[in-house]
């Protein structure tokens, strides 16, 4: 149960220690105290360990995470879990812009709200936001799911590809080529699975959500769509 106090240990030493763990490490549960808004805390992890961060973090916490389970007991700055490959990142507070940006896999859970561009350019990750998300969320989202229990801001899903968006609350507006789509049984099942993974099984009814996705009108460039680009 290593405990690292970032007022006594440098960030570089913390991250190097986490990166140096062998695959069969016994040090599988780490606690980080006093992050004090530092950037790149627990970035680049690639072991199946748990890291609990007791406080607020700056930019890119758990960036490019693979395998690890990271919990932020506080708020997270820009780009939390950006480009995550696998594992789980859980923000107990709010998240700033670009949460889960370009992430390929794993699960990102945000208990509070997420600011603008949540899930921008996402490439396979599952994101569950218990609060609301800001404007341009899921911009150019390629694949994966974004589930929002609250509301979504302007231009949701602008220019998106194959990502699926589930929103329970109001959507201010949809972005270019993003349309509402029918919630079929397979979508309700998928949504129930994502909610369960986020610890919300039985607490939230998938039937309350609406589904949004790509109209696929921008998949091939044509001059008649120029106004939408």
């Amino acid at each position: 149960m290593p405990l690292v106090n970032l007022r006594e240990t440098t960030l570089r030493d913390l991250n190097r220690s986490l990166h140096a763990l062998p695959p069969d490490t016994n040090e599988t549960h780490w606690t980080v105290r006093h992050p004090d808004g530092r950037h790149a805390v627990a970035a680049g992890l690639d072991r199946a360990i748990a890291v609990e961060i007791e406080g607020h973090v700056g930019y890119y916490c758990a960036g490019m995470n693979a395998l690890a389970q990271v919990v932020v007991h506080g708020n997270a700055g820009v780009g939390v879990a950006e480009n995550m490959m696998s594992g789980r990142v859980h923000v107990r507070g709010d998240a700033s812009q670009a949460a889960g940006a370009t992430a390929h896999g794993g699960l990102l859970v945000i208990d509070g709200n997420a600011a603008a561009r949540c899930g921008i350019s996402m490439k396979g990750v599952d994101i569950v936001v218990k609060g609301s998300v800001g404007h341009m969320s899921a911009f150019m989202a390629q694949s994966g799911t974004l589930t929002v229990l609250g509301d979504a801001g302007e231009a949701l899903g602008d220019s998106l590809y194959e990502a699926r968006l589930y929103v329970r609350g109001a959507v201010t507006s949809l972005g270019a080529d993003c349309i509402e789509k029918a919630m079929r049984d397979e979508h309700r099942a998928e949504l129930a699975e994502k909610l369960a993974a986020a610890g919300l099984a039985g607490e939230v009814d998938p039937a309350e959500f609406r589904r949004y996705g790509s109209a696929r009108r921008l998949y091939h460039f044509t001059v008649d769509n120029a106004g939408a680009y």
Partner: protein
Amino acid sequence: MSEPPRTRPRLSATFTPDVMAEIRRAAATGIYDIRGAGAKRKLPHFDDLLFLGASMSRYPLEGYRERCDTQVVMGARFAENPITLKTPITIAGMSFGSLSGQAKEALGRGATLAGTTTTTGDGGMTDEERGHSQTLVYQYLPSRYGMNPVDLRRADAIEIVIGQGAKPGGGGMLLGQKITDRVAGMRNLPPGIDQRSACRHPDWTGPDDLAIKIEELREITDWRTPIYVKVGASRPYYDTALAAKAGADVVVLDGMQGGTAATQDVFIENVGLPILAAIRPAVEALQDLGLHRTVQLVVSGGIRSGADVAKALALGADAVAIGTAALIALGDNDPAYEDEYRALGTTAGAYDDWHEGNDPAGITTQRPELASRLDPVLGGRRLANYLAVMTLEAQTIARACGKSHLHNLEPEDLVALTIEAAAMARVPLAGTDWVPGRGF
């Protein structure tokens, strides 16, 4: 009685036949022209500079006997594992997707033989190019196609791409006909659709954020890997200063002659600076920060010969990058394929529809029957030969100027043939001591 003389038919200098043909093409199709390569218009360039050579006041070095070193160390500012180049000529970023697998392999083989780096592109790193490139620079682009921490850690350097010379401020589009299953899989997108590449990074904006992004990449790679920042030449003084301040080990500056896989012709020809106009401001920015030679400057965009290399280095660059020239060395636009170029409505030397994937030379294509025309071993040998020739040419010039290392070349070794080039390169007009913009 004979007819009175008539005014001779007169063609417009404004509405030239080429301009009128483009107007007709636009009217017929309703779409702007998309093409590959870089600016084709005539621009002030290295051809407008001359070396003075040694004379009474300068002592030359003996060709073939006295040393003229070419080695350059890249990325020693912050990275634990800097890169040592045997020649200051590197291979610019070009993607698997825009180029065939064989072409990428050939670039890796040629660069490895020459002791220099090659660079991935928008689409990620393939095992083949990693395997065939002794030192590989991994591009970190706005799209983040194929970006993953495993490849990040097996890269020898990371190049954060802000922009490129062909299209500063622009993203990209790889058209569906080049999106094979493999290319699509690497980019997490369905095969066959047009793939848009964003023009801005998704998770940071501006130089203050860039500093934090660089810190993250250094943390992920445990501060081992050099980090480059690539910009298109537009505001070179400020862009270079801001990249250096943000913590870059290396700044890559790409002029408008630098090629692209596919961009609007209007963008390529009308946005950005020729590389000749960008080098001195970038060098001055590093000098003002006390970081010249500490942060390496790589310049690109129309580098063709050892003379161009020597001129770029004399203006203060640490190294150069080649893209289009490397493809030509592999066989791009070779007259041997003239019949096929004509069938495509073009001619050898002018073929630039790289985005369409029909390259007879097998380079800018994903069609197996075309890509197989390029032998990667032979292509790598040709590229290595070309790099060796350019290096020898640059050394020849440097020795004639009395320099024992290419980096000892300096602006005082140069004069300009035109007022424009003199002003841009900040060297005297030939035969005068006049540097335009620097008073009389």
